[in-house]
């Protein structure tokens, strides 16, 4: 163990796939022998990013969401991409409780959840081109056998 491992998923931007996406990433991460809490963190962060792509990126319309995950040592990096509308004011979008869609009962906590449950979060977005969310997390309990 401790070797580099990689996976890529592509799926339609449909809310039914939010569950599929987080379960698939959690299954990939399971080779790092995570605790129940760590797996829950990963699932929640992935769910938030994919939900953002579905609701905000593609506004519930058609599109493709891509997830790539890389395991290196005891760390996982997860990249979630959409080619949707993009975010014009990223700073405001990332503020806790800010939501551009209050009518949909969004809590505005998505990015805050990703930041809290993962070790690192980096978001880049371009209006009309899409959004890329990069997150990483170290699994403290995992020994690389060195």
């Amino acid at each position, binding site marked *: 163990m401790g070797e580099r491992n990689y996976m890529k998923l592509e799926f339609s931007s449909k809310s039914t796939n939010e*569950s599929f996406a987080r379960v698939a990433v959690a299954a990939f991460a399971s080779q790092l022998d995570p605790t129940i809490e760590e797996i829950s963190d990963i699932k*929640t962060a992935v769910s938030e990013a994919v939900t953002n792509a579905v609701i905000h990126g593609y506004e519930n319309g058609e599109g493709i969401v891509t997830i790539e995950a890389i395991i290196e040592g005891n760390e996982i990096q997860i990249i979630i991409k959409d080619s949707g509308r993009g975010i014009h004011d990223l700073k405001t979008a990332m503020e806790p409780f800010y939501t551009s869609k209050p009518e949909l*009962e969004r809590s505005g906590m998505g990015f805050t959840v990703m930041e809290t449950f993962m070790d690192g979060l980096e978001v880049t977005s371009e209006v009309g081109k899409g959004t890329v969310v990069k997150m990483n997390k170290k699994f403290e309990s995992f020994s690389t056998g060195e």
Partner: protein
Amino acid sequence: MLKMGGDFLQLILDTIDENLIVKFKGELDHHSSEASREKIDEWYYDKLKKNIVFDLRELNFMDSSGIGLLMARYKMCSENGGKVLIVNDNQNIQRILRMSGILKIIDVYSSIDDALQNSIGE
């Protein structure tokens, strides 16, 4: 009592006095919250209830969409002179509740009976 839901989330609705009891089993995310919130509101208004008790003990996943659902019901009950109460003993669910700040306005109880005792009065 009403039971509905697909593979991911089961929603069980019941009423006790002026309280609507909402029990979730499974995964509460954006997808599953959309369908359940309409049903919850329909029961709340049709049956003229005041408070909502959310039983989250059998949820095995909840993200910020669940927080959004709870916050909107809190607003709805407040406007109606009622309150929202949560029953939970699940640590993973408790973590997202805590980080969202919702626990500053909604109290958590360990059983439905406990919550119901606190729903009366004021």
